[in-house]
């Protein structure tokens, strides 16, 4: 009989780990709160840097883990320590004994409405990065005008924000803004697009190429300055204020659409799990790895491992690589115990 490994979270981290564990001869049990697998990526449209389809990624992973035990719309009710493992009680009444657990509970998209000065949920034409991806995927959105003339992107919404309790850089939003700005220009070639940033953090493979292309081929303008406030003009357009920190002058611009790059925040479900399994929480609120260089996948508890954004903001390839590393860690942990 194949050994159980409980995976908490059915996003890309949980799915990739399940795939690897199946290949290694285990029986992964994926516990997902939502009614579908795929997490945040499952609601995305295209992924940088190759503009690959997010739906294809999720479909592909889903097909490869069809032999895993997948519980949708299920939560973990409790995790209790046994002599050589854990007893995990699920909200569907299932009780699993396992020697190893993988936490892949991911992040929560920062609630952009908390940055009240940006007017998300108040003004008619303010949306988030996530809303825009849903629209790219075909979901109608009345906030997006038929042909917007002027479009703005605000970087770092709820990231690098001490006051909002989220000091971390969310890593992916700069690149997502550049990607989405290009996609907007492709849909609306006559639109003028401005990206408001504090720093452009384009660290990954081919990210700088996107930045260069955005300037060179699409004429997207990058303004260094954080948007301070958004208001509405009498004719229902948005008026955005920022300082152009490179010229030292205040800027005002009227827009037809403003996209807020909401960052990655701690998932409350992760905090609940941490309490249940006595997992350490790091100073940034995310789960604390045993150490941040050699043992990112390891927790302070024997047999419990991490993968993906539960330990901090991650890109898709980083998350997938961590999931594979975690599967190997689990394999080695279980082998050693035999």
């Amino acid at each position, binding site marked *: 009989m194949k050994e159980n490994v409980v995976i908490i979270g059915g996003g890309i981290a949980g799915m990739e780990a399940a795939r690897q564990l199946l290949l290694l001869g285990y029986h992964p049990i994926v516990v997902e709160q939502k009614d579908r697998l795929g997490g945040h990526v499952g609601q995305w449209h295209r992924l940088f840097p190759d503009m690959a389809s997010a739906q294809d990624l999720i479909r592909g992973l889903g097909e490869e883990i069809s032999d895993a035990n997948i519980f949708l719309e299920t939560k973990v009710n409790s995790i209790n320590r046994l002599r050589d493992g854990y007893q995990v009680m699920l909200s569907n009444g299932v009780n699993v004994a396992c020697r190893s657990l993988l936490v892949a509970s991911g992040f929560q998209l920062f609630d952009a409405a908390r940055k009240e000065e940006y007017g998300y949920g108040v003004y008619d034409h303010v949306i988030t990065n996530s809303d825009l991806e849903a629209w790219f995927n075909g979901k109608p959105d009345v906030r997006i005008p038929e042909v917007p003339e*002027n479009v703005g992107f605000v970087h770092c919404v709820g990231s690098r924000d001490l006051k909002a309790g989220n000091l971390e850089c969310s890593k992916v939003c700069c690149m997502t803004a550049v990607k989405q700005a290009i996609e907007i220009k492709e849909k609306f070639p006559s639109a*003028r697009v*401005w990206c408001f940033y504090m720093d452009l953090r384009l660290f990954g493979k081919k990210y700088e190429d996107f*930045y*260069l292309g955005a*300037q*060179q081929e699409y*004429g997207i*303008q*990058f*303004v*260094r300055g954080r948007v301070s406030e958004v208001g509405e003009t009498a004719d229902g357009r948005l008026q955005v204020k920022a300082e*152009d920190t*490179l*010229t030292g*002058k*205040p*800027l*005002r*611009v*009227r*827009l037809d659409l403003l996209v807020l790059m909401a960052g990655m925040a701690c998932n409350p479900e992760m905090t609940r799990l941490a309490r249940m399994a006595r997992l350490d929480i790091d100073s940034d609120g995310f789960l604390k790895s045993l150490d941040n260089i050699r043992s990112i996948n390891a927790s302070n508890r024997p047999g419990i491992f991490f993968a993906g954004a539960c330990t901090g903001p991650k890109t898709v390839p980083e998350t997938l690589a961590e999931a594979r590393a975690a599967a190997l860690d689990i394999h080695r942990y279980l082998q050693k115990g035999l």
Partner: protein
Amino acid sequence: MTDFGFKLSKSSAVELDKVDTTLFERLCEASPDARICMNCGSCGATCTAGPYSGMSLRKVLLGLQRGQDVRPLLSGCMLCGKCTMVCPRGINTRNLILNLCRIYD
């Protein structure tokens, strides 16, 4: 005019959507690389005339996009071409400056 003992200052705010960028667009036709400046400041730092005249190609390109008259800056350029050597985006800055001067003429 009656002197009320106070005056109104003109706002220094730039109305980004109303700025006339015709000159910049014309420059981009002649030197498409004008678009790819990333405001690193290497050109201004290396500029021989910069410390004495305030010339900085970065300021010129940004000023054009903010509707400023950049001729006072440009007049400080001696066309030595040092900025071309340091630009990390490989912009032919000297040629770009010459093109801009032609547009102003």
